[in-house]
């Protein structure tokens, strides 16, 4: 009962970004994807959600081949929460969340009773009922991110992918959204895969953490096992200290980098 990603190779044009990536995510589990920029985390999300065709590999959900499904069928299994960039400002919250039902609607897009109920549920779960008639252009970044999460929840899928859902959010919203995602993952038995830049957020909210480097997963497991000073140094090239907090989860603390003299370089004087 899980999402199985096997040996995926994907990239843009001739460039290979993902190299033989394999991963399994179970229902009710939150797996965080972390790693440096360009390591392939967002690319993996794009492959699973059907936006990028991989050159090789398979992605299966409980036996169904996700890669070769038509968009409508795939959208009933996989929902994506992208980053809140350039949302059309005139749509209201309710209109935007209702678009999450697209995979269940006809060409005309008329909402049925079950669709409306799903939208209301999603708005309630993300605490957006009081903002339902506001245009997106009137919302803060955190509120817009919640709208995208509500839209994905309205899709009622067993798999949820989040691409940096907390970028540009303040601390309170980061905690709110990720806490909500974890609770919903348990309650709805969803397999959740989320790309997070902040290692401490990943440590706090994820069941397992997959560390990416140069298109491959170098370590995967519970945060306490994966986040070691050696692993962070290997992947990020940055010295850190790992502390343990009360519940055993690792906290990553950036060590002050000692002053290293610049290597002597012959520079040409600009004219």
């Amino acid at each position, binding site marked *: 009962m899980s999402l199985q990603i096997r040996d995926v190779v994907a990239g843009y044009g001739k460039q290979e970004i993902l190299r033989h990536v394999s991963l399994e995510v179970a229902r009710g589990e939150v797996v965080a994807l972390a790693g440096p920029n360009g390591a392939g985390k967002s690319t993996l999300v*794009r492959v699973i*959600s*059907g*936006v990028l065709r991989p050159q090789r590999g398979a992605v299966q959900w409980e036996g169904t081949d996700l890669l070769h499904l*038509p*968009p*409508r069928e*795939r*959208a*009933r299994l*996989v*929902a*994506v929460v*992208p980053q809140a960039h*350039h*949302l*059309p*400002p*005139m*749509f*209201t919250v*309710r*209109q935007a969340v209702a*678009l*999450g039902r*697209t*995979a*269940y*609607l006809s*060409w*005309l*897009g008329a909402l049925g009773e079950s669709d409306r109920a799903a939208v209301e549920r999603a708005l309630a779960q993300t605490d957006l009922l009081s903002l339902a*008639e506001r*245009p997106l*252009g*009137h*919302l*803060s970044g955190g509120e817009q991110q919640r709208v995208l999460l509500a*839209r994905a929840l309205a*899709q009622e899928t067993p798999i949820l992918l989040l691409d940096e859902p907390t970028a540009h959010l303040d601390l309170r919203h980061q905690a709110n959204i990720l806490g909500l995602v974890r609770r919903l993952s348990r309650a709805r038995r969803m397999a959740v895969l989320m790309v997070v830049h902040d290692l401490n957020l990943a440590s706090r909210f994820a069941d397992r953490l997959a560390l990416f480097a140069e298109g491959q997963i170098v370590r995967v497991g519970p945060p306490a096992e994966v986040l070691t000073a050696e692993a962070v140094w290997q992947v990020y090239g940055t010295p850190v200290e790992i502390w343990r907090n009360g519940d055993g989860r690792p906290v990553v603390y950036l060590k002050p980098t000692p002053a290293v003299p610049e290597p002597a370089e012959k520079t040409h004087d600009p004219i």
Partner: protein
Amino acid sequence: MLVQGRGKALPLQCFPMHFSSFKRALFLNLGVLACAMALSVAVGSVSIPLRDLARLLWSGVRGTALPADVPAFMAVIVFKLRLPHTALVLLTGAALGSSGAAYQGVFRNPLADPYLLGVASGAGLGAVVAIALQGESLTAGGFLIPGAAFVGALLTVALVYALARVDGYVPTSTLILAGVALGALASALTSFLMLQSQGTLQRAIVYLLGGAPLTGWKPVVAILPYWLVGEAILLTSGHALNVLQFGEDQARQLGLNAGQAKLLVLGAASLVTAAAVAFAGIIGFVGLVVPHIARLLWGEDYRRLIPLSLLGGASVLLLSDLLARTLLAPRTLPVGIVTALFGAPFFLWVLQRAKK
């Protein structure tokens, strides 16, 4: 009156259009359209009094004999000249308005217009080829020129689509590039052909600016099937266009077959535009300005925007055509010149208001 929202200026209508206000908008547009139609039939080199016009139409609808005290020539003017002309202008304006809204929706760009993928330049090329092939014959050529324009428009769009294909997808960025490139090529070929002979040049210019000089119901009947099919698709594509406003990636992730939806909508929009342009010539601004104004007034929900732009486009073109016929009476200005002369400053005025 604008509302500042987080630094983004929102237009006049910043709350969702509830059903009641959509109904109001619809009735307003229908009312304006009815007035425009009445004026269009009544006004001209012979002025038909509105009372007589109403009685003529009423007897026509009921199929009874014409009222005795209305001069017979008025009946001829109304039924054989004015009504078909009004119908043609209405269909043309409606096509330009609705397809302009559709193009703006697919390209997510308020500067898009129905000629973006080469409909206008393709139509021009088709028409000029037909004119050139006709030789020095002085006859209008009947349906050859509009037919060639129609075919030229659709072939150009099809070619643009084929050229823009990348890895099985047709991204909007390559569509625009291909449209611009092929449009320029078609225009160049058109100019070349026009310069080949004096006769071709004159007739081509007349056609491009003002359309085919055909009267009666035949042009209306000719474009009606294409208009109906295309508009049926456009009027129902509001939901798909709404989904596309979040970008193609998100649209696919939400379950829309974005490629098919774009093809369907652009195909329908190009079809109605080609049909409109075939007989009316290249009329600018309507497809750009009408959806824009509709968006400023009534918001961006494409399920509402397409029908409102359809009605708005029809009204605007009817009024422009009226002005074209009356401004320099008894001469008739090409409608395209009127739409440009009034469209541009009006649009600038709306923009100035929106900025405050």
